[in-house]
């Protein structure tokens, strides 16, 4: 059940025992894990994340934060890239394995009720939080245009998800193996000009998000970005994850990870 403005999460975060329903490779180095997590699934909003306990090993001590890629019924899906020790162990999780997550966490995307058209810009794994956003937006009648970027055609993440819900999906690849030959940011200017959206949402490498934010502000369109920081607690207690904003230091795990681009001091 989506509320009109996603950010007004009615629930507080909780610690939920979960089990692995599926954990499959979607492309080399990227997998999707589906967790049986009814309570978090019911309350997660687009842009929220969960703090996942990957293992009880103390040599990989801390939880790892992952955006909610999709939340349907009793299931929470996480789309993740295998980078280091934590995500390597995560890729080894077997169906039936049990662990726990803290969630839903953080401030999600905001979406004015009267939003007619939204532009969603995803770079690489930035697609993770945007999948759910695109779904929920179109589900409540907002037209969604997606600009999806990757190094090459093979690495276009969650393209199907977007195509199934978006009115229009444009892709860009660094090597030109699919869509526009170049950066996804190069599509944004044109897409905004052709059909100015009420909001732009961006998630990806920080330089990409920053460029999108600049283009949006030049076009006078409000823009929200989802930022990543290393996170220890994930709940707002340790001040590991701070982001410099016009409002001062803000916690990515609490006042973020989604920020109004205009407030971020890049």
């Amino acid at each position, binding site marked *: 059940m989506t509320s009109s403005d996603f950010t007004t999460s009615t629930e*507080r*975060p*909780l*610690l939920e025992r979960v089990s692995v329903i599926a954990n499959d490779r979607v492309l080399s180095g990227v997998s999707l894990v589906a967790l049986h997590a009814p309570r978090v699934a019911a309350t997660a909003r687009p842009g929220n994340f969960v703090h996942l*306990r990957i293992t009880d090993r*103390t*040599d*990989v*001590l*801390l*939880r790892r934060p992952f955006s909610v890629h999709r939340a349907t019924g009793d299931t929470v899906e996480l789309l993740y890239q295998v980078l280091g020790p934590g995500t390597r162990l995560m890729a080894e999780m077997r169906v039936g394995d049990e662990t726990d997550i*803290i969630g839903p966490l953080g401030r999600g995307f905001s979406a004015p009720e009267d939003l007619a058209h939204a532009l969603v810009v995803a770079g690489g794994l930035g697609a993770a939080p945007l999948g759910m956003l695109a779904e929920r937006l179109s589900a409540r009648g907002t037209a969604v245009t997606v600009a999806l970027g990757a190094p090459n055609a093979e690495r276009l993440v969650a393209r199907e998800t977007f195509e199934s819900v978006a009115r229009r999906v444009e892709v860009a690849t660094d090597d030109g193996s699919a869509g526009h030959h170049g950066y996804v940011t190069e599509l944004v200017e044109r897409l905004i000009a052709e059909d100015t959206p009420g909001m732009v949402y961006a998630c990806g490498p920080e330089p990409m998000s920053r460029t999108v934010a600049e283009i949006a502000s030049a076009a006078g369109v409000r823009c929200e970005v989802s930022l990543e*920081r*290393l996170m*220890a*607690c*994930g*709940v*707002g*207690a*340790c*001040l*590991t*994850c*701070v982001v410099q904003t016009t409002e001062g*230091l803000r916690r990515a795990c*609490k006042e973020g990870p989604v920020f109004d681009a205009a407030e971020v001091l890049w």
Partner: protein
Amino acid sequence: MSSPVDLRVSIAGLELRNPVMTASGTFASGKEYSDFVDLSRLGALVTKGVSLTPWAGNESPRMAETPSGMLNSIGLQNPGVESFVEVDLAWLAAQDVPVIVNVSGHSIDEYRAVAERLESEDAVSALEVNISCPNVDAGGMAFGTDCAQAAEVTAAVRRVTRKPVIVKLSPNVTDVAAIARSVEAEGADAVSLVNTLLGMAIDAHAFKPKLGRVVGGLSGPAIKPVALRMVWQVARAVSIPVIGMGGIMSGEDAVEFMLAGATAVAVGTANFVDPTATIRVIDGIAGFCRAHGIARAADLIGALRVG
């Protein structure tokens, strides 16, 4: 989960429900963790470090994971004592838990000023004077690695407060027992240890330090052996109570610190791994006592059988 075991301990006249506190800076002022923990079950809540004026802390990245531990270089970011009193303390006053405020300063004057400001606040049960933060240049650890300076800070705070004064010691010293004795001599009611070990992590492939500040404080299970040793040394060197911490993840870990001489313990990094860690530790201590037919947790204090 009430248990037949008497878990109460007392520190400098402060009666605690049980020996388990939160470690400063890992639990903020409790609000965030109140979603997961019934704060009224805690022995005490120790706040994040509070200074006189707002501190911005260090640049990012502020943490790095290490084998069985983590480095942090937060740098005592905090809004200053006024805002702390208005916002955090106001909220804490409504919670049924003893509040120990962790006091920071760049100078002896700042430590004293913070203590003075808090003296009139009834919601504050005790002060923990942090002379051991490895993450600030001026003050912080400097005061905790020199007996004379440690004594001076203690005396300055002691003069302006009637509340119990706990001095938090640094493990980054040659002789922690000597520092403990010097703060005891200046009227400290208790000592807490250890703060983090100064450490460093490097991203070899980037040829760069992992922390924005280059060095940071090591915490977690990795440091437990060093922390236990220091608690044991200090407990035998002073007659004031010792609050032990460093890598406590379970009730059994906590019991080890008490056997080594700690009257109470604090749980820090474990909160990040399991937001309910404090409760698990409390129940674990009770379970240990039950299993060994020990009626009072206080009987564990210094009960280690050596030689």
